[in-house]
């Protein structure tokens, strides 16, 4: 990958990896152990009251397409299955990290997650809940930048404001790497599956031949639509152009835009009131 040396140089400056909390790491270890069942994992989460509360808050945040509230971890495990549970754990921890990076990034991320879910369901993509998680995490590289690379972050912000650039163009201009690369790097360190990591890496650089291209296309469009609806703050005030190849990969044309956005809009009303803090 052409950006690899830039990325390695940048991440070598990060003294400590943005960390997952100990309780999440312990459950991740349990998940990786042979013979662990979803029930065992559910029980381990349920024993940790603070973590249970966070997990249920996220499950009920409109993040998944559940129409009735999920009241218990056992119920969440049944509904989500084992694979989704792994991503959910990381998402739970990441939600508060994203919220602390800069105001407005979490509402933007949650909007992107909801639109990604709707898009996945409408276009018949596999595992819409995993794509929703990718939507929540798609800008986690901005959190890494804001919290672990303060000098670079200031330079990016300055370029965004002085030259009215997209955040990613300001990153490319000042660092040669974008938050998409940084985020994918972090999530790979956190052992998230490639079907979550690769679309995040490609959400601003669609490549029809890259792995999980269809999911990357969905994330690319969900981010654009989240920006169009104006919920939260992705760190700049512009809209990236949709890549026609991404729309083609999804089978989305001009007549699909309005029904898709109308369905999303109906599910964003709580976010406009501004109470979507992480």
């Amino acid at each position: 990958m052409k950006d690899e040396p830039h990325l390695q140089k940048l991440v070598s400056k990060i003294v400590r990896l943005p960390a997952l909390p100990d309780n999440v790491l312990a459950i991740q270890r349990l998940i990786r152990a042979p013979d662990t069942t979803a029930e065992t994992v559910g029980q381990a989460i349920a024993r940790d009251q603070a973590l249970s509360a966070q997990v249920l808050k996220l499950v009920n945040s409109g993040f998944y397409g559940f129409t009735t509230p999920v009241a218990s971890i056992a119920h969440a495990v049944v509904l989500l299955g084992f694979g989704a549970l792994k991503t959910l754990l990381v998402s739970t921890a990441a939600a508060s990290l994203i919220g602390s990076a800069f105001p407005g990034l979490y509402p933007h991320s949650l909007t992107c997650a909801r639109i990604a879910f709707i898009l996945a369901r409408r276009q018949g993509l596999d595992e819409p809940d995993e794509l929703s998680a990718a939507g929540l995490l798609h800008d986690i590289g901005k959190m890494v930048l804001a919290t672990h690379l303060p000098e670079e972050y200031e330079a990016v912000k300055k370029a965004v404001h002085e030259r009215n650039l997209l955040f990613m163009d300001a990153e490319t201009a000042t660092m040669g790497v974008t938050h998409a690369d940084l985020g994918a790097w972090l999530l790979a360190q956190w052992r998230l599956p490639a079907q979550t990591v690769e679309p995040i890496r490609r959400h601003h650089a669609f490549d029809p031949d890259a792995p999980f291209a269809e999911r990357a296309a969905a994330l690319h469009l969900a981010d654009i639509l989240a920006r169009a609806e104006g919920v939260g703050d992705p760190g700049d005030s512009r809209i990236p152009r949709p890549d026609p190849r991404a729309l083609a990969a999804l089978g989305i044309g001009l007549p699909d835009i309005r029904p898709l956005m109308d369905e999303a809009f109906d599910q964003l009303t709580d976010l406009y009131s501004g109470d979507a803090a992480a």
Partner: protein
Amino acid sequence: MNTLPLQKARPGDVLATDLTTPEGVFALGKGATLSASVLARLDKMGVASVTIRSRSDDDSAAAMNTALAQLAARFAGCETDPILAEIRRVAEDHVRLRFE
């Protein structure tokens, strides 16, 4: 907040400042809601103008205009892309729906 001739004030308007008569006598405190009878009494007392808080429909119109201006700024330069133009049209309709 804006200052209006008394005749333009409406029942339900809320005073943004303390109100005194032309003789300098305190008449009503900041935050008081004007009723039809209070407006009539103020007229008798010779009060010519009142300073009221922005009416909520004005606030809502202003907020909508801000949201539309932000939207226009976000989409500046995107007019040539037909998909983005459609996305913008729908997003604009959604802004209007939010403030209806």
